[in-house]
């Protein structure tokens, strides 16, 4: 046991913060999606870390969970990219702040 758990958690938190900042601040829809992916992966890293340092590390539960999470994230990105392309075709832009037709 060389590296303590808190290191992984700090990396994961940083990763999450970077992803959140990207998702909130970027204008380009694709970059926003990348930010979202970063946040997901930060969560995955947390899963792995807690599984590895947990009481039943031999059972592979954390690993399985993360693999499912990655698969779901891939599907989600596919849908999101299809949406972005559809919106781009319609409005000739991928800038998120121009997508405001849902305002009151």
């Amino acid at each position: 046991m060389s590296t303590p758990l808190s290191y992984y958690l700090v990396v994961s938190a940083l990763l999450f913060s970077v992803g959140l900042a990207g998702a909130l601040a970027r204008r380009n829809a694709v970059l926003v999606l990348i930010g979202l992916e970063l946040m997901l992966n930060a969560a995955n890293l947390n899963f792995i870390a807690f599984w590895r340092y947990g009481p039943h590390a031999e059972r592979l539960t954390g690993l399985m969970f993360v693999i499912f999470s990655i698969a779901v994230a891939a599907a989600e990105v596919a849908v999101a990219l299809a949406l972005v392309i559809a919106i781009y075709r319609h409005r000739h832009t991928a800038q998120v702040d121009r997508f405001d037709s849902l305002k009151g």
Partner: protein
Amino acid sequence: MESLVKYLWIIPAAPLLAAAAGALLPARRRRLGAGLAIGAMAVAFLLSCAAFFATLQPGRATSNFRWFQFGDTAVQLGWVLDPLGAVMLVMVSFVSLLIFVYSAGYMAGDWNFTRFFCFMSLFGAAMLGLVIANSLLLFFICWELVGLASYLLIGFWFQKPSAAAAAKKAFIVTRIGDLGLFLGMLLLYSKAGTLLFYDGGRGCLEQYAAGSLAASTVISLLIFCGAVGKSGQVPLHVWLPDAMEGPTPVSALIHAATMVAAGVFLIARVYPLMSDQAKEVVTFVGAVTAVFAASIAVAQNDIKRILAYSTVSQLGYMMMGLGAGGIAVGMFHLITHAFFKALLFLGAGSVIHGCHDEQDIRKMGGLRKLMPLTFATYAAGMMALCGVPLFFSGFWSKDAILDAAHQWPVSKAPFYLGLIGAFLTAFYMTRQVCIVFFGKPASEEARHAHESPSVMTVPLAILACLAVVVGFFGTPAWPWFQKYLEGGRPAFDLSKIVAPEQLTVMLLSAGLVFAAILLSGLIYVKAAARPSRETDPLERAQPAVFALLNRKFFIDEIYDATVVRLTAVFARLSDWLDRAFWGGLVRVFSWLVVALACLDRAVDESVVNGGFDAGTETVRGSGKWMSRFQNGQAQRYLRVIGLAFCGLLILLLWGSQ
């Protein structure tokens, strides 16, 4: 008989259907309209004959059904087949049939021909319904329908103001009597608990006949009120002479043969519940009416009015016969009178028709040669009405009444009144026949008079035969009619005629009749031959008496001055009360309501509307302000969520310490 009574309703239903169909026919379908009415009446007549033959076996059959029910009380209607009803059925349907046929000729020139037959059928239906009714309620319904038909037919020539007034008068005057009948009906219902006449022992008449209920004078007299109105007894006789404004067949059918007989029939029908006092009243009213109307008839100049007063007088005889002698006596005169009075009216119609609608007998004269057939039949009717002995029906029926009055234990006055009436009857009928048919024509119309077509004279001939024949069914020697009504077998016994009691009355009345005919003939044959016929010989002899009779004892004037004026004053008072008092009250209330409404409106517009406007404006403004937060920028929402999450986290961390 039992099986027949179930289908008895078809008899009135046939003319009723004809009336309904006639009401829907266009006015130009004249032949169809008349054919329908005559055909339906012929069907009714044939069925009536069947019913009549069924009643030759003594007995009574009824068919009752429930009309409607409220609470525990069921109102029942029904029909009854008994000799009393059957003989009326045959008489009404037969006379109606003849008069319908006659009308087809008499009314041929009328533009409203189809409607006339519709009304006549309605009348026939109502009258036949009245005859078969086994419930006083059904009787009353038909009774009112008869009144309605009478109103429609008297006012048939409604363009004439006098006809319209006469129709109104007839309707209103008979209504006075009907009120009595209605009250009597209610009272009877409260006493007997049913209005069915015969109901297997439970009917009201059966209760009275069995003695389980004591005859009530009040109920009897109230029901008699209805009969007084309908049958034109004093003091409600005033409408009947005025009803002569209607077409002559109507006068013949309704105001001579059938409808006015309804009152007599009513008394005969409810005879078991008449108390002895009520019978006395009936007898006296009848006797007074008989003399009173006969004396007026002496001084009338309108051919139909003479017959009308004669009808009133004969109805008086019938009432007298009912009161003093019983059902058979009164009903026998009703039947014989129906035939000869229908004959006389139709004969008068023929005369009027031949003289181009002239009704004043002073302008006629000498028609004996111009209208021989009419004269012959009219003479038969006249002799039947006078009661010429042995060969004419009127003699036998009138003799039965006089005989009953003679034997009446209460008083001899009706007998003497009846004798005076018989004398007057013979006198005025002879006068009429002399002036109309003898002497020389007194006007251009009479000079050019012509005999009527055979569609009119054939019914006259048939009725003339019957006016003679019917009498032989009720002679003292062979009282078939009386036994038929009472349900026994007549025995032929010639000695009954020459029984001293009978013979005295018979000889007395016959002597009076002959004296009257001779006297009147002597006076009026001479008068009719004179070129100037304006003044009556009686008028020259006794101008005051003649004027009194000619103006009908001023009864109309007296009613005008008292009852009518009182009613008018009361109506004016009501009118004033209505307009000034109640109207004023209503106006005040309406102003109050209008003022209240104005106030209401002001409050509504300023307070309620303003409040709502302000409220909605506030909601709208705040909504506008709030909607600025929702700008569609998904990232901003996310930012807010992130900030809020951080805030929450910090709060939780702080809270945990």
